[in-house]
C-alpha cells in the first residue's frame, strides 16, 4: 500500500553495500518502518492468539458446549459475552473457537506450502514429462471449484468430523496455488548463475534445491504460506457456515452457522452476532496486512519501483 511512497528511503540503504551494512535488528526496524502494514497485521494476529491463550487460562473448555450456561443471556459478570440460545458460554466459544480456527489455518497452510512447494520444485527442476503430469493435475484441480469439492467431501464424512480432519480436508486442496506459483519462481531462478555454478561443481538436484534454491525463495515461501493460511481459513469458514463443519467443535465458522441457523437476528441476540464476526474480520484483515507488508520482501522489484 504505502510501499511505493516510502521506497525512496530504501534505495540508499540497499546501495550502501556490504561494508557498512546495517545490523540485523536495524534492518528489520527499517523494513517495518517502510512497511507499517506488516507490523499492524502481525499485531492483530498476535492479539487474537493472545486473547485465545490468556482466555483459556480463565475459562474451562467445557463452557463452550451447549447447556453449560442459561440460554440466550445478555452479557453479565458470570458470562462476559453472554450465551447463545443453546446455552453455550460465548466467551468460552470465542476463546476456543479463535484458536481452533487459527490452528486450522496454520496446519492447512503449512501442509499446502510444503506439498505445493515440493511439487513446484520437482516440476520446474526436472521438467519434461514430470512437469507435464504435475502441471496437468494442478490445472484440472484448479478448474474444479474448490468449494464444491470441499462441500462434497465434507458432506460425505459429515459424521464425526473433527477440527483436525477438517484441516486435513482443506489442506488436501491448499497446495494447488503454491505449486503453480513456486514452479513459476523456480523456472526463473533455474537459469541463474549461482545455480549453474553449483551444478558444474557437481551438486545433485536435491542439493541444489535445498542449498541454493530454497534459501533464496524463503521470503516468497513465507508470503505464499500467509496466502495459504488465509485461503484455508476462508474455505473452512465457508464450509462451516453451510453447516458442513465439525458439529461438536466451537470454531468461529460453526458459531456463524449456529447464529444464522437459530435466527440470532430475528431473536435480536446481538452479543451472539458481533463477537465471531469481529474476530474473523480481525483475522482476515490481519493476514491481508501481513501479506501486503511482505510484498517488498517476496518481490524485490517493488523496492526499486518508485
Amino acid at each position, binding site marked *: 500500500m504505502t510501499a511505493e511512497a516510502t521506497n525512496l528511503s530504501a534505495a540508499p540503504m540497499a546501495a550502501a553495500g556490504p561494508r557498512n551494512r546495517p545490523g540485523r535488528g536495524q534492518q528489520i526496524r527499517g523494513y517495518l518502518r517502510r512497511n507499517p502494514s506488516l507490523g499492524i497485521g502481525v499485531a492483530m494476529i498476535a492479539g487474537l492468539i493472545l486473547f485465545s491463550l490468556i482466555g483459556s487460562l480463565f475459562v474451562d473448555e467445557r463452557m463452550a458446549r451447549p447447556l453449560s450456561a442459561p440460554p440466550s443471556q445478555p452479557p453479565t459478570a458470570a458470562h462476559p459475552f453472554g450465551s447463545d440460545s443453546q446455552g453455550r458460554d460465548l466467551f468460552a466459544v470465542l476463546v476456543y473457537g479463535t484458536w481452533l480456527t487459527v490452528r486450522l489455518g496454520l496446519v492447512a497452510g503449512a501442509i499446502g506450502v510444503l506439498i505445493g512447494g515440493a511439487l513446484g520444485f520437482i516440476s520446474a527442476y526436472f521438467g519434461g514429462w514430470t512437469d507435464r503430469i504435475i502441471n496437468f493435475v494442478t490445472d484440472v484441480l484448479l478448474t*474444479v*471449484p474448490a468449494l464444491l469439492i470441499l462441500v462434497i467431501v465434507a*458432506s*460425505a464424512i459429515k459424521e464425526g468430523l473433527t477440527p483436525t480432519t477438517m484441516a486435513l480436508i482443506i489442506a488436501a486442496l491448499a497446495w494447488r496455488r503454491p505449486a503453480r506459483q513456486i514452479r513459476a519462481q523456480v523456472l526463473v531462478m533455474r537459469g541463474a548463475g549461482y545455480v549453474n555454478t553449483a551444478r558444474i561443481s557437481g551438486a545433485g538436484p536435491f542439493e541444489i534445491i535445498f542449498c541454493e534454491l530454497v534459501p533464496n525463495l524463503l521470503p516468497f515461501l513465507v508470503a505464499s504460506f500467509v496466502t495459504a493460511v488465509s485461503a484455508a481459513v476462508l474455505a473452512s469458514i465457508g464450509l462451516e457456515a453451510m453447516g458442513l463443519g465439525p458439529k461438536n467443535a466451537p470454531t468461529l465458522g460453526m458459531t456463524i452457522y449456529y447464529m444464522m441457523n437459530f435466527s440470532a437476528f430475528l431473536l435480536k441476540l446481538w452479543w451472539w452476532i458481533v463477537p465471531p464476526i469481529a474476530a474473523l474480520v480481525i483475522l482476515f484483515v490481519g493476514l491481508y496486512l501481513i501479506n501486503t507488508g511482505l510484498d517488498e520482501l517476496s518481490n524485490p522489484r517493488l523496492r526499486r519501483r518508485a
Partner: protein
Amino acid sequence: MYLIYVLRRFVMLFLVVITAASLNFFVPRMSDKNPVLEKITEMSESSAPGSVDMQNLLTVFNERFGLDRPLWEQYLSYIGDMLTLDLNYSITSYPTRVADMIAQALPWTLGLMVTATLIAFLLGTVLGALTVWRKDSRLLQITVPVVMVFSAIPFYLIGLVLIYFLAYRAGWFPIGGGYSITSFPGWNWEFIADVMRHSILPASSIVIASIGIWALGMRGMMVTVQGEDYMNFAEAKGLTSRRMFLRYAVRNAILPQITQLALFMGQLVTGAVLVEIVFGYPGMGSVLLQAVDYLDYYTIYGIVFVLILAVAVSMLILDLVYPLLDPRTRAQSH
C-alpha cells in the same frame, strides 16, 4: 501454427473437463449415505406410518437410476450423459429434470451476481484509474487502501455485517430471502420492486468486497501505462489531460481488466453459493446445498458439471483470444 495451438487447447479442455467430471462422479460416492434411502426416509417421515412400502420403493428407484448396476457401468453412462449434456432427473424431487431445476435457479443467481460484479468492476476500475491520475486528491489516496482492506474480508462476512447494521438495527432492508412471502411472483412492478429491495444487501456485500480487487488491478496497469512512450508523445502534442486520461491511459490499461472480468464471470456461480446461504436467496447455491444434504447424486453432478464447464470454457476463450491480442504470448505458445 495458431491452428495447432487451438487444437492443443481443445484437447486440453476435453481432458480437463473429463477428469474434473470424473472427480465429480466419484467423490459423492465416497459417502456411505444412499440418496434413495434418504428420499424414502424423508417420504415415510412425512406420511402416515406403514403407508410407504419402503422395500419396493427402494428397488424401483435403484433400478430407475441404475444404482443397482456395477460402479463402472454407472460411471460410463454418467460420462455419456455429460458428453451429450443430458443432466438426468433429480432423485430427491423425481420426476423433475435437473436441467429444469438449474433453469429455475440460474436467473436468480446470474441476475444478482452479474449485476453486482459489473457494478464492482466499473467502480473499482474508475477508482483505480483515478488514484493514479489524481495523485493530489487526498480523498482518493485514503479511499483506495480502505477499499482494498475490505477485499480481504470474505463477502459473506461483509453480508452479515450489512444485515446486522442495515436490516437488524436500522430495519431498512429485509433480513433475507429473494422476495417477501406476501408478494406473488410475476412480471409486475410491485414484485420487481420487492425483488430489487431484497437484492440490495447481497449485491452490496459483493460490491464492497470486490471493488478493491478491480481497483488494484487497474492501478497496476495505469502505473505501467504512464511510463509508456505514447503517453509522453501525447503530452508533447499538448493534448488535454482529460483526453489523455480517457483515450490514451484508460483505453490501454483496461484490456487486462476486461480479460480478468471474463475469467471472473466463469466462476461467478461458485461465489454465489455462500452469498445465497447467508441471505437465504433462492438460486443455484440453495439448490446445491439441498442436493448435498440429501446426497442427490444427479443434482450435484448437474450443477457441478455446469460450473466446471463454465470455468473451463471461459479459460479456453481467454487462451484463444490472448495470442491474437498480445504478440508476446503468441511467441511463447510456439
